């Protein structure tokens, strides 16, 4: 579904140029569950933004469902984002003045779905994520776990093919973090392609495919060992 070919991205940090993505080659198939780990500044967030069409590479190719995205203009990229990609951020990024339900319905509103249909779909997704009774609350009236569920509901309400999560549990206590992880893994089992960027080893190791990045390169790409006893290998 996703193919990155020799993707490069360089930032200027003061006087110094930082190679955030260095000749990245990567294939991701539909329905995969990936985690990206690595130290700060290794380029993992840049990779996520690149995959999410939030950023443009300096060179290289990015094919999304066979479409060459580097050739698209900003408007077309915005449309692709809204159709195919859902985001979950560490800082939630909820609009403070809008209620939970309004936040969740925002992508539908932006793409012109009528109000009644929006309400039906937001109700559905809120029930699924266990926040059906929080619809009228403003973000500041919600706990961190609830906020991240609202953000998750917003990310999946358009049924994206790809869900990108940037430290989804970074601001949460362990219990609400575990709940959020359970939810996004459930979504993955239903067929959504899931990519999680994290520092958290325990979270990263849950993924079926684990990437490790250092200095803008993918230094490790391995599949999790099937949970079978050692003796079965012989």
């Amino acid at each position: 579904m996703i193919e990155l070919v020799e993707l490069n991205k360089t930032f200027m940090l003061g006087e110094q140029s930082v190679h955030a993505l260095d000749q990245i080659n990567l294939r991701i198939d539909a329905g995969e569950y990936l985690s990206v780990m690595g130290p700060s500044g290794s380029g993992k967030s840049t990779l996520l933004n690149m995959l999410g069409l939030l950023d443009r590479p300096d060179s290289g190719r990015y094919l999304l469902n066979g479409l060459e995205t580097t050739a698209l203009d900003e408007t077309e990229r915005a449309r692709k984002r809204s159709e195919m990609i859902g985001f979950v951020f560490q800082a939630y990024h909820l609009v403070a003045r809008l209620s939970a339900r309004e936040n969740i319905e925002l992508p539908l509103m932006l793409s012109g779905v009528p109000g009644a249909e929006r309400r039906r779909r937001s109700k559905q997704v809120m029930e699924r994520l266990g926040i059906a009774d929080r619809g009228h609350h403003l973000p500041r009236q919600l706990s961190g776990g609830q906020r991240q569920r609202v953000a998750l509901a917003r990310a999946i309400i358009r049924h994206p093919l790809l869900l990108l999560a940037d430290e989804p549990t970074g601001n949460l206590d362990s219990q609400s973090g575990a709940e959020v992880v359970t939810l996004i893994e459930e979504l993955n089992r239903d067929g959504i392609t899931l990519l999680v960027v994290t520092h958290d080893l325990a979270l990263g190791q849950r993924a079926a495919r684990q990437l490790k990045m250092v200095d803008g390169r993918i230094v490790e790409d391995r599949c999790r060992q099937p949970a079978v006893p050692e003796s079965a290998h012989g």
Partner: protein
Amino acid sequence: MGERDSLLFCWQSITRYRFRSAMILLAIGFGVAAVVVLTALGEGARRYVLQEFAFLGKDVLVMFPGRNETTGGLPPVTGAAARDITLADVAVLGRRVSGLQQSAPLVLGSAAVSFQQRSREVIVLGTSAAFVTVRKLKLARGRNLQLEDIERASVECLIGQTLERELLQGEAALGALLRVADYRCRVVGVLQGRGDAFGMDLGDSLILSVAAAQRLFNTAGLFRVIMQVREGYDPEQVKQQVIDVITALHQGENDVTVVSPDALLSTFDDILTAMTLGVGAIGGISLLVAGILIMNITVISVGQRTEEIGLLKALGADDRLIRKLFVLEAVLLSVCGAVLGSLAGLLLLLLGRQLLPQVDFAVPLWALFGAGGVAVGCGFLFSWVPATRASKLLPLNALQRR
């Protein structure tokens, strides 16, 4: 994004950022209210002045001796005195010009009027009974002058209310005998109200027969002749006839000036309309200031909502939509501000009318719609630049506030 949803989204932003919205509303409201009130003051002044002159009516001509002619050099200060207009001239006019309903000759001076021990220096008008009707004066008590022969002095006189109060001090006015210089006259009527004319206060004046005044001031010439044009006649034609007759009477010399109030009024009208436009423009400046405030606040708002812009873009909003949302919000605010400002201005005018009933404050429609239009236009123009800037933010940078 649908139009209704765009409006809803902006409306939510306006109603949920109350302080910011209130500031913009206040600024635009003030601007619009200023234009409304200032132009209404100008318009009120215009109407007041026109109304002050309206006593003359459109069917009245005023004739006075002398003629403004532009000739070489300085005009003689004295000497080249024009020929007087006499009562005989007026009589001839009445006979020859069929378009004249009636004429009131006017002799003007000031004299000491005394009653018993009290004396008061007042304006003395010598005229005929026609004066009261042409000038549409009202009598508080008594009756108008009754002159059988305009050439003969009568002992009857009218007095204004101020004079009555000061001189008679409560004693019966009607029938009272007054001395005017060396002459005696009997009060037959009291004028009502002030009835300003030519800057004189008729309330503090004495009106007697024109012949008596001519004797009093020892003059044969008339100060003014006020003529009323008969209904159905064109004042301009009658004016020309009057000039022709007088020219014939004065040995072929046109030495009088006849003014129709229409000409006078239209001059005043022009001046006062210009004044209204001027004060309206001053109000317009405050609107412009409001527009700049809109720009500042939109800039700040874009700064504060950078994250939101990034998010909207991540959720699939394109540049045009972002710009549209910000511009729409500013325009929506301006419309609300313009409506509130107009209402506030109109309310102030209502109050003004209560306090100063004699001035007819009214907002010209062009000012009302102009102010509203300028306000909304400012909202649109001044939000365009910051909104465009907002729309150009890269989603990633906006989200991370870089």
